[in-house]
């Protein structure tokens, strides 16, 4: 269990949606308690992923559904708290992470109906590296629902501390362990 008063935390793209779609009352109460003291801090890369997602859904949707997608996008932007920009320090750390782990640790996502291309998987992996770099530089625990990507980053940083002087360890908190 994580004390919501122990924030602020950085929220990964996967964490925002997981926390906001949950029906578990104890998780919602955790979010309420957190929001009464802090805001959801995110990386600019999360905003890139999210807004691209809304835009892609809008383009693919029939006319009558576009209204809901646009209303959802506006709600998201209204709720958005502080956004960490990709500055020099974060870019340097992200570059180190990408050099340590050039390839995504898991294959592209696929099911019987839909699949993710290799290029998209690589792009998503690099976004995750930049989000992890933001958490390291901001010295904030990263709340996520994507252990398969972030745990290898944490391990790699622990094994090469000389490439991350004065930083780390990367503190990870899974959404499911918040309550």
């Amino acid at each position, binding site marked *: 269990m994580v004390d919501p008063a122990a924030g602020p935390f950085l929220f990964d*793209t*996967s964490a*925002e*949606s997981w926390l*906001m*779609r949950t029906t578990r009352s104890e998780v*919602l109460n955790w*979010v*309420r308690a957190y*929001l*009464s*003291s802090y*805001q*959801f801090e995110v990386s600019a890369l999360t905003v890139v*992923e*999210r807004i*691209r*997602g*809304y835009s*892609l*859904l809008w383009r693919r949707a029939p006319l009558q559904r576009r209204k*809901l997608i646009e*209303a*959802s*996008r506006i*709600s*998201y932007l*209204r*709720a958005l*708290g502080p956004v960490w920009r990709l500055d020099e320090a974060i870019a340097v750390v992200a570059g180190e992470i990408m050099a340590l782990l050039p390839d995504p640790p898991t294959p592209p*996502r*696929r099911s*019987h*109906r*839909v*699949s*993710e*291309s290799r290029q*998209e998987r690589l792009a*998503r992996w690099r*976004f995750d590296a930049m989000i992890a770099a933001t958490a390291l530089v901001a010295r904030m625990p990263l709340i996520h629902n994507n252990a398969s990507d972030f745990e290898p980053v944490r391990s790699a940083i622990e094994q090469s501390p000389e490439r991350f002087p004065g930083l780390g360890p990367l503190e990870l908190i899974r959404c499911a362990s918040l309550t």
Partner: protein
Amino acid sequence: MSKNSGGNPIKKRRTTLTLPSDSLVQAERIARVRKVNLSTVISEALSEGLRAHAAVTRSEEVLNSYRAAFSGFTDDEVAILDGIILEPVKRH
């Protein structure tokens, strides 16, 4: 005259309140210890309560906006909102 955080004088109004005796006794005790008048203690406590209430209201507004941002989407659509760009599998 008291001033607010912007350096402007705070407007004051006289009123009559009915308060729980226990709270009033506690407030009077604090006023004696701090050597301030009862109005100051009550005013500070009220400000603190109003700040907490505003924080809860704001937190509920943000939560409602956030939840609206993700409602009405399928799991595949939420994956796309999470940056996982999924395309229909091409059948050969």
